[in-house]
């Protein structure tokens, strides 16, 4: 499959008061993919997004949207983008529909049919004529998405789209996002500091730390990468002996002991041999389990490792 690049960041740098907030970001985002910006608070996710939508100027580098530079051809570039930056802020004293109408007026070719279509898509038909100040956060978020979809953009940018939503709301947003990417071929960029959330909706995740892009990984690959950790519970008194047996017999396994448990990293294929070996030595095995590393731990692993470098 040939992937069409819709957003291209080239050496994007932002310097504020002599400090590099964003440092030479270079990456591409393709059609039909959900790209996640992951990073701790203050890593520069929102700043990067603000530069993508032209709210902030770039200090160096350039961003191209469908081949148009956000700096020199702002109007052409931005018309392919729909976005919510931070909270979905609307005119509270207007109804949801009037808000949409206001934003529809600001770009060409949005019919009232399209508006109804978008309202239906986000499931706001019943409340769309109520004032926005009566909306719940979830409804505002949905209205925000409606607003960003009005002009059928090629790129949808959502900054922390699930912030402050309840689990049902989060699930709903996730489904919209997957749908938009898969059915309409839109490129969706989301940002979050929650890895678990990203893992469920993104195809690729870019990890930002201290303004630098330290890793871009496809979600599937990343999750299956590396060896698993196993833990074997043996009898308290025999634990030390078991530790030494394993060290002697399996040179590439480095077990650690905590009370009656031995934990070590190993390939799945090695486990039967280890169990067999230990029982052969007459040791009692109470439990063998796989300790799957949580995504958070992996994420911290990656970020900490890079920090040391």
């Amino acid at each position, binding site marked *: 499959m040939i992937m069409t690049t819709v957003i291209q960041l080239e050496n994007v740098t932002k310097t504020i008061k002599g400090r590099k907030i964003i440092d030479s970001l270079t990456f591409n985002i393709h059609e039909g993919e959900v790209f996640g910006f992951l990073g701790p608070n203050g890593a520069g996710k929102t700043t990067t997004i603000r530069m993508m939508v032209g*709210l902030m100027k770039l200090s160096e580098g350039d961003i191209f949207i469908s081949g148009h530079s956000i700096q020199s051809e702002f*109007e052409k570039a931005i018309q392919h983008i729909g976005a919510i930056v931070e909270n979905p802020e609307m005119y509270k004293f207007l109804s949801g529909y009037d808000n949409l109408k206001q934003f529809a007026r*600001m770009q060409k070719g949005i019919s009232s049919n399209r508006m109804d279509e978008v309202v239906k898509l986000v499931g706001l038909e019943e409340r769309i004529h109520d004032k926005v100040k009566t909306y719940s956060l979830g409804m505002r978020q949905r209205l925000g998405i409606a607003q960003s979809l009005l002009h059928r953009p090629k790129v949808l940018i959502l900054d922390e789209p699930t912030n402050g939503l309840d689990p049902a709301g989060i699930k709903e947003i996730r489904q919209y996002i997957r749908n938009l990417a898969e059915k309409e071929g839109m490129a969706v960029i989301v940002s979050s500091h929650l890895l678990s959330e990203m893992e469920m909706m993104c195809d690729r995740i870019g990890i930002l730390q201290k303004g630098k892009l330290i890793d871009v990984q496809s979600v599937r690959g990343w999750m299956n990468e590396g060896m698993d950790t196993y833990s074997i519970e043996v009898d308290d008194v025999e634990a030390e002996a078991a530790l030494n047996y394993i060290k002697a017999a399996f040179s590439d396994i480095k077990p650690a002991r905590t009370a009656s448990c031995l934990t070590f990293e190993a390939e799945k294929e090695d486990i039967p041999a280890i169990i067999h070996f230990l029982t052969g030595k007459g040791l009692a095995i109470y439990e063998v389990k796989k300790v799957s590393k949580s995504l958070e731990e992996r994420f911290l692993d990656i970020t900490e490792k890079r920090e040391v470098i």
Partner: protein
Amino acid sequence: MVSAFAAFTKYEENKQSEQPDWKQVVQAENAVYAQQLNDQREMTADQRAHIEGQIEINEYRLTENVPVQTSEYMWSFVENASDFLQVAGLFMIVVAGGIMANEYTWGTIKLLLIRPISRSKILLSKYVAVVLFGLFLVSMLFLFSVIIGAALFGLSGQSAHLAYVNGQVVEQNMLFYLVKLYAMKSVEVLILATMAFMISAVFRSSSLAIGISLFLLFMGPNVTYILSMRYEWAKYLLFANTNLLQYETGTAVVEGMTMSFSLIMLLIYFLVFQLFAFTVFAKRDVAG
């Protein structure tokens, strides 16, 4: 508000006793003027010219038998109601001061700026909205006072305004004169609203914009007046130039100022405000 003012004027009018003969009044006035010209040597050339003009107008009244309008009627009410332009200005400043700053406060500025419209176009349309609102207020005031004036005080009265132009007394159409009066008085409001708009766009604070502009609207002319008594450079201050009527009444703040000088100064202030607003707004990073 205009209605209340009209009712009050009507009430006052009813209390008034019979007016003395207008010819006597005019003659007495001219006598006072003549005396002023003789006694006060410190008078500026502008003031002198103004008083001479008034004398000419009064002479014209006597010779052509054009009576002085003493009772209130439609046009004179419209003329008096022009003081309400200050109130219109207050509303206009409130709107101008809020129109950009509120977008920041509400956070909706982010949604505005990610439309395929350049920032200067957005700012321009906001400014146009402010000007249209001001025009609406002023024309409403004018229309409303015409209607109320006609209803309460009737249409009968002098149909021409006497003016002293280039050494000659001319009769001007009342409507033309009043539109000119309203336009001149609106200039001050417009320039202050522009300033409020600039502050609003640059500093993103509506209270700052409204506060400063209203303070200047009420205090500016007084402060300028005080400064102008001592310093010649006061004529370059904004408020020395906002009152264009000073050239009609011969009371220029600093001697030697002319209408075109004021218009140029106003234009410069206007352009500086706009330039400032546009450059800062177009370059700003929008965060938070």
